[in-house]
């Protein structure tokens, strides 16, 4: 074979260079992007680095006040505040009072009636494009909950509310951004009563594994207290006709890239004995990691690398734990 390798770059055919680069962990891939322009084009063109799954840089954040009369505060460095002119959220005449930020996703904010992007408010003659929230103007019964999230096809919005029979109901929309139309398309509509088996059988559940944060030792005592391997079936003497407590439902997020996995919800059922159970479902599949000591946990949930990860922080021990399903 002729010595055609120059010293300028790694002379592997693109497919094979992609094969090599595709084996690297994210941090090394980011370093490889900086090695050579051709490497970066291969990494980017073949989506080797799943940037949608990687942390973004935090430029600033909003803080919702407890007092509804106050405006959400925006915290950022001065350079960011100069760039993001919409951070005072006073860009709309139509909004009465101060907007309440319900959810956020990739810099978009979900207000009750609309979705806004504070970073682009200065575009097009100060005229700001607001997208109506899919729930705007609808009669939704008591305590509807609205969410915003991103998945493979784009931005999704989800709604948890009670239907006419006061049973929990869920709807999911996709924001169709093609041709500049910006409209919400209803993707899923389902009754949560039908889709969640309320008698917690283990038929669909997968064991959750517990992993501790690097460098922190798990306290064995804490581990013993919870049953991680098996979603326990709880003895419930009084669970009010098997209806889930409405107030305990929270939305976890959308699967970051799986198309048929639009929705992930967490669902708490508070049982009289004081045990808190955690449920997760996608479609009609249900998994639950077992019971957790009451009052001991505050939880932060997130999705990493497409897996549902639930981080638990125990107040008493300050031990961080992560469950994967």
């Amino acid at each position, binding site marked *: *074979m002729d010595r055609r390798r120059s010293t300028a770059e790694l002379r592997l055919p693109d*497919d094979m260079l992609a094969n*090599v680069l595709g084996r690297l962990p994210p941090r090394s891939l980011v*370093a*490889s992007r900086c090695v050579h322009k051709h490497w970066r084009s291969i990494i980017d063109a073949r989506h080797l680095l799943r940037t949608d799954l990687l*942390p973004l*840089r935090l430029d600033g954040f909003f803080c919702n006040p407890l007092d509804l009369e106050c405006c959400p505060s925006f915290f950022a460095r001065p350079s960011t505040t100069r760039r993001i002119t919409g951070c005072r959220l006073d860009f709309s005449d139509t909004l009465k009072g101060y907007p309440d930020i319900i959810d956020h996703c990739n810099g978009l904010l979900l207000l009750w009636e609309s979705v806004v992007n504070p970073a682009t408010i200065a575009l097009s003659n100060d005229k700001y494009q607001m997208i109506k929230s899919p729930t705007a103007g609808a009669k939704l019964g008591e305590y509807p909950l609205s969410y915003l999230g991103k998945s493979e096809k784009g931005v999704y919005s989800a709604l948890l509310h009670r239907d006419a029979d006061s049973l929990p109901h869920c709807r999911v929309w996709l924001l169709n951004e093609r041709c500049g139309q910006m409209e919400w398309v209803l993707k899923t509509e389902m009754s949560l009563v039908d889709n969640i088996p309320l008698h917690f059988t283990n038929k669909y559940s997968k064991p959750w594994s517990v992993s501790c944060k690097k460098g922190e030792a798990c306290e064995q005592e804490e581990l013993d207290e919870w049953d991680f391997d098996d979603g326990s079936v709880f003895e419930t003497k009084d669970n009010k006709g098997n209806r889930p407590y409405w107030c305990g439902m929270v939305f976890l997020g959308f699967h970051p890239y799986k198309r048929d996995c639009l929705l992930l919800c967490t669902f708490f059922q508070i049982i009289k004995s004081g045990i808190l159970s955690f449920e997760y479902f996608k479609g009609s599949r249900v998994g639950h990691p077992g019971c957790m000591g009451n009052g001991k946990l505050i939880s932060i949930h997130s999705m990493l690398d497409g897996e549902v990860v639930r981080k638990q922080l125990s107040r008493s021990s300050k031990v961080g734990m992560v469950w994967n399903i």
Partner: protein
Amino acid sequence: MEVDKGKGEAEETRKVAEADRDTVTLKSSDGKLFEVSKEAAARLSTVLAGMIAGGSIDDNGTDLKQIGSEALENVVDYCNKHANSIPSAALISSSISFNTAPFKEPEEWERKFVDRLSHDALFDLVEAANFLGMERLLDVTCHKISEMMKGKSPDQIREVFNIKNDYTKEELEEIRQELAWAFYDD
């Protein structure tokens, strides 16, 4: 006449013997001949397996014009070593369903095999493995190259592979900003 006839018969018997041979002869781009176990070649290379099954193996050396003698020597060496090692069950299954099976870590002898290669020889071997459809060898060689990049800074990677930086300072700063988190330590 007698002599000619005898020669023809000898030719015939030689051909029959060739068909029953348990090795195949491969010819590199620069004309060197290598013998490799037919069984190993068919098992490890989808391309050679196809040629053996299709009868397009040349007894005088099957031309592999894309592969230089150094790379072909390594390929043959790998096949023979593979035939001699007792492959684990997982390895056999990965060579059958190579597209779906997860990558299995190189075995000790495979690691030693690629470790002794120069960079150029390693890259040539990647190309040869790709050309011959040798999924496992491609896996092992690409894995080796990726190991050489892992955990290194852009400068260190360029140094290892002798790559010239074609970014300007400003461009580099810009792409570093895009994914700034990766440059902070845990």
